[in-house]
Each structure stands twice: as structure tokens, then as C-alpha cells.
């Protein structure tokens, strides 16, 4: 199975994936990335304050395949 890397950014903190994850294909990797983003948002948003989250999916060569971003701005 191909290897994908999932790099996350949370507000200003960049969290690079050092190990990667073997998944069936890019469609699965995208689905997993979106699910993870939603799960992290569900945990982080109730902690209060602004939240910016992004996930970037890279292939085994570290070429970017997909990016998703999420912003939460309570007023």
C-alpha cells in the first residue's frame, strides 16, 4: 500500500508527520485527513478561542496531494 504523510497545523504550530501512514489509495488518504480534521476540531473548539487547523496530505516523495483548512472564529 502507498505511504502518505499527514502534516497538521494548529494555529501557529506546525506538526510534521515523521512516520507516515500506509493507506489503500489517495481517496482513502483524503477521507482519513478530513475525518481527522473534524475529530481534532471537535476536541479543540470547546477549549475556547480562535482555531485554525489545516492538514496537508503528501505522497511518499513528499509531493503535496491535498490540503484542507478549517477556521473557527467565535465573536
Amino acid at each position, binding site marked *: 500500500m502507498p505511504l502518505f504523510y*499527514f502534516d497538521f497545523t494548529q494555529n501557529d504550530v506546525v*506538526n510534521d508527520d515523521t512516520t507516515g*501512514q500506509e493507506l489503500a489509495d489517495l481517496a482513502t488518504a483524503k477521507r*482519513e485527513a478530513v475525518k481527522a480534521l473534524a475529530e*481534532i476540531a471537535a*476536541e479543540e473548539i470547546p477549549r475556547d478561542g480562535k482555531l485554525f487547523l489545516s*492538514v496537508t496530505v503528501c505522497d511518499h516523495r513528499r509531493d503535496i496531494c491535498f490540503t484542507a483548512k478549517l477556521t473557527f472564529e467565535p465573536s
Partner: protein
Amino acid sequence: MNSAIRALIIRLETIGEVTEIDKVALAALPVQERFYTRGSEIIPDGEISTSCCLILEGYAYRSKTLPDGNRQIFSLHTSGDIPDLHSLYLPKMDHTLGAISDCIVARIPHDAVKDALMRAPSLIGLLWRDTLIDAAAFRAWMLMLGQADAASRMAHLFCELYIRQSMAGLADGNSFALPLTQTDLSDILGTSVVHTNRTLQDLRRRGLLDFDQQVVTILAWEELRALAQFDPSYLHYLDRRVGRVDPAKL
């Protein structure tokens, strides 16, 4: 005595008194050892079971799968556990018992277990207690699945397994075997594979534990336990030290 029965007695002695009569009755149980490769089903959902499965080596799991293919793992079982003891009275499986790693399982016919209970009635209370503890563990897992964040949930799983492996004599200092893939782990924790992977990296980075998908090493027990909000009372060990001291010293 068969080594599977010996493992069962070790397990039962951690939760209650096992009399000589009980041991004689258990030792007389006919067991048929079978090997299951990792990923195989031991007893599938819906099947009518005619024997109980006593785990001798490796890890078994119980799970159910939704029609869309999403699987939830409810529990893990290792040497000395009988994860389908309930099949004695509820023979139609309402979930799957499977091998999450390569497993050796001793199958004990239901009739033989019922016969042993007739010969040693004090076993009834002991096995009932074991089943009740199993239910208590489900409540603890449910609480974590429904209410805890991913890091606490993962920490709780590792805390529970460490205590159980220590009590079964299967931990080596601060380490124990846990041959699980990240997909297995995510099906236990109810999080996506990517979030599971990220959470594991977070626990590693905090220096709480190490896990290479084969072996878990606890690096900071008290911190891990605090993160998990882990109180092992639900495991109902007779030894009241469990949970109050470093389990590595048990």
C-alpha cells in the same frame, strides 16, 4: 495440567479464591487447542457456539461491524481470559470473536464447562464474577469512547492493558507485547487512523510511552495515568495494591 487451564487458574486467582475442588474440576476440562492466524475470526457474529474459548497465547478481540464496514472493537483478551464465557447461556453470538494477533485458543465444550460447574459449585460464583468484571470493563471503555479526548482514551487503553498484563504475569518490567496495527488501534479508540497516529506520536513526544506496534513500553506511569484519568478499581482485583502503587512492582 494443560497450560491453558493453568493460565485460567492464574487469572481466576487474581479476582477470587480458587479452591482445590475448583482446580480439580478445571484440570479435568477437555481442551482442544487451535491456532488462529492474525485477522481470522474465531467465532463470527451470528454463529451458534458450542464451546468456550480460553485464550492461551496472543490477543483476541470482540467487535461488531456496521453494514458500511466500519468496525468497533469492544475489548482485547489475552492469556487466561475466556472472552465468550457468556456463550454458555447465550450461544448465538451477537458479535464477533476474532484473533487480532496470531492466537492459540483452547476450545472447551459447553457441556464440559457445565459439568465442571456441577462438580465444583463454587466455580459458579467465580466465573460469574469474571463475567461481571468483563461488563465493568465495557462500562469503562464506553465512558472513554463517549466522553474522553483521543489522548486520554489512548492513554487509558495502555494503562488498562499494562495492569492486566502485569497481573497475568505477562509484562516484562515496564513493557508488554501488543501486536496491533494502527488500524486495529483506531478501531479500538473510535478515531480515524490519521488521528490515532497523530495521538500516538503526541504521547511519544511527551515521553509517556513507546509503541512500535509490537511492544508497549511505559516510560512515565504516573503521567500516563493522570492523562488517562485511570482508576483500575473497575478491574476488581483482589489485590488492593493494584492502582495504588507502581504496577511494575507488583
